[in-house]
Every structure is written in C-alpha cells, then in structure tokens.
C-alpha cells in the first residue's frame, strides 16, 4: 500500500532526526507519545546515532516495497544513552552481522512509492 503525503510527513522528525522523548525517570520513548505511562512528564530527546545490535534477522521474503533489497539484515538496535529502534543493517554482507555489533545510524532512502509517488527516507544503520 502506497504511503501518501500526510502519513509520511508527520513522522519525519522521528525518521529524519531520531527525535524521541525522555521521561523524568530516564526512560526513552521513540516515537514521542501523547501520554507517558504513569503520567510521567517527558522532554524532547534526540537519540544518539551510535548503538549496538541486540538481535537481528536476515529477511529473504520481504513485502513488495522492499523486495529489491533482499536478502537484507534487520535488527533491534540499542542506542547509546537510551532508546531502541528496529532498523535495517546495511552496507554489510548479512552473513557478517552479529549480535553485539556496533553500528552507526545513516540517512537512507527506505522505499519508493512506484515510479510516480513519494521517495520515502529514514534511518538505517551501518557497521561502525
């Protein structure tokens, strides 16, 4: 299903700049929320562009929009200073990806909505 402008546009602070929120108790929420559990107050927090792989897989049968990329690694990344993201691990042979590997966030094109639609950008990670 194609991503249209409104849906794409409202996520750009998170996708482009990893804008999150940090509560008084130090928990990082990505994306920021309307309400934080326990009624905690939170401040805008820009997540680090460095982290490590908590777990990962290599996708061989993706959804149609990602089929050109297969096989590609995707992992859960714990960022320095808090916050976790699910992100593709690129510029590396998927067989070389390991749990615990250090990675760095890069700005990448995530998908293209056909020949005529939006170009959609966001974050992926590369080995540091």
């Amino acid at each position: 299903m194609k991503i249209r402008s409104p849906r794409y546009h409202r996520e750009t602070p998170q996708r482009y700049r990893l804008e999150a929120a940090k509560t008084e108790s130090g928990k990082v929420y990505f994306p920021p929320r309307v309400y934080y559990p326990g009624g905690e107050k939170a401040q805008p927090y820009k997540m680090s562009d460095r982290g490590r792989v908590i777990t990962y897989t290599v996708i061989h049968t993706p959804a149609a929009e990602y089929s050109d990329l297969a096989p590609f690694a995707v992992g859960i990344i714990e960022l320095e200073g808090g916050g976790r993201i699910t992100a593709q691990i690129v510029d590396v042979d998927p067989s070389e990806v390991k749990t615990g590997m250090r990675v760095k966030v890069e700005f990448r094109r995530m998908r293209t909505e056909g020949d005529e639609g939006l170009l959609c950008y966001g974050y992926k990670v590369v080995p540091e």
Partner: protein
Amino acid sequence: MPDVGIVGYGAYIPRYRIKAESIAATWGADAENYKRGLQLREKSVPALDQDTITLSVEAAKYALKRAGIDGSRIGAAYVGSESHPYAVKPTGTILAEAIGATPECHTADYEFACKAGTEAMYNVYSQVKAGLIEYGLGIGGDTSQGAPGDALEYSASAGAAAFVFGRGNLIASVDETYAFMTDTPDFWRREHEHYPQHAGRFTGEPAYFKHTLGAANGIMKKAGMTADDFDYVVFHQPNGKFPMAAGKRLGFPREKIETGWLVPWLGNTYSGASPLGLTAVLDVARPGETILMVSFGSGAGSDGFIFTVQDRILEVQELAPRTRPQLDENKIYLDYGRYAKFRGKILRNK
C-alpha cells in the same frame, strides 16, 4: 586576511565499487583503454537505498561536526547535483529537515552539469560575505548516470562533499573567487531522458580545457598569484587524464594535483568531483597552505576559489571520516549484474 571562508567540511563516498574490467567485460571493450588511457580503474556505486539526498545529508552531518555547530544555525543550504531525486520537489528541503536546519533556512537546488556543487559553495559563501546569514552549507553531490556501454559508464559515480561557510573560526579562508563561462554544447541531458548525451572529443579542448584554463588563469591574475604560489590545486576530474593535462599546461607539478586527484579510484562524481578533491586536500593540509580549486561543468563553465588553510584545520581533521580512507577502505565490489540492478538499468515489470 579575509574573515569569511570554510568552517567545516565533510565527504561521503558509498562503499560499493565496480571495476573497469567488469564493465568492459560486459560490453566487449578493452578495460586497459580506460585504465591506462583515461586513468579510470574503478568507481563508486550508490547502494540501492542511497541517492543524492542521502549522500548529501551524511556529508553535511560530517561538515557540521567539523564546524562544531548545530544544524539549526544553518541559514542557507544549497545542493548542486545533476541527479536530484525528484524532478520537482527540492532536495534542499529534505536535507535541511534531516540536519535540523528548518524552518529558518533558505534552500535551493542547483544544476550545472558537474559544476553545480561549486555553484552552491559560491552562493553560500556570497551570502555569508554579504552578512545575510551566519552559516550556510554548500554541497555538491551526485549519483551520476552513464548510458550502458557508453564511455561515461566507466566514470559516472557517486559521492558528496559539503562545506559549512561562516565568518571567523575558519579552517580555510576564501581569498578569491572567479567565474568563467560560455554557452558551449559539449554535454547535456534532455528532460525525461535517463542518460546524458555528449559531443565526444568536443568535450575536451573547446569545453573542459578552455573553461578550466580560463578560470584558473583568470583567478590567478585577479589574485596576483602564479602556480608557484599554491601548495595544492584541485580541478574537476571527469577522468584521470584531463586534470593532469590541465595542471601541466598551467605549470603545476604533478604532486600538487595528486592529493585531490581521486578519479582513478572514485570515478567522476559530477557535482561532487572537485568538492571531494577539496575535502581530500583539507584532510591533510597544514595551516598556511594555499589551495586553488577550479571546477568545470559542461554547458559550460568553471568556478574558481583560492583558499588559505587556517590553524583550526588541525583541530577538525579527525572529527569525521576523511576522504581517502572512505575511498580506500571497506570496499564492496559489485559484478555488472548487481551494478545494473543497483543503477536501475534492468527492464522489469512494474
């Protein structure tokens, strides 16, 4: 001493490469012709998820890191490229959003074949000098295309270089600028066409050399300097041969050209070509050294800059990845089949 100049710079080169042999083998050509004759050994290839915007954003982040400023302080961000991902919709806004420069930021996308990057630098520098903005970003980046089997396929590559211009706290002052151009139809791409057309050997003497030499001589005369006054010179580098020939004709010894001569291993990054040559020079330059930079863009024209490297260069060189290591290390080689897929050269079902 001029107080306006470069306060930060960044280079970004994709990891993927293809060797001249892989291209030549596909088309039944002799790779040695390209390797020896044009000094094109291999070239960078953008990953499937990279384009001019993503390369420019990464280069810009490195430049901001070296400048030591937040993206919100960028008052203008100009991106020069002949491969802006959208036909209509700015590259600059996406870049500005990604580095946190919006909304108080002027953006513009430039196109002037391989000269668009220095145009961006030229105009950002002018705005800072005029006092309209505190800091600005001038970026040259491309994921350039050469038609399958064409000579350009051995050179058209990908990369971006970004420069933060500002007043004070410089790493390199801009001592002089100069522009030289005529209407010369040596190379073009019509709207809706995938690949550029070029006028063969006409791209040499009447185009590249006339404008490159014209701008180099013009700026040196304007500044009252000669080739002997420079430690480094960076030219546009569509292949390995042209910049060396231009340097020789201007009286520059080979060693003053080589530091910024990346094309044999990088290919021609079009709008990024002379800017990446400059980042490679800044990576190793010492305070007090002088740099002449002359771009070239088909159509045709050249921009010239004279820089003097400042003390602060030593503090920033290590703050972000240098150019040469990105070129020499961590390479992933593609065969022609994967390269053709990466570059969208395979006819497929929608």
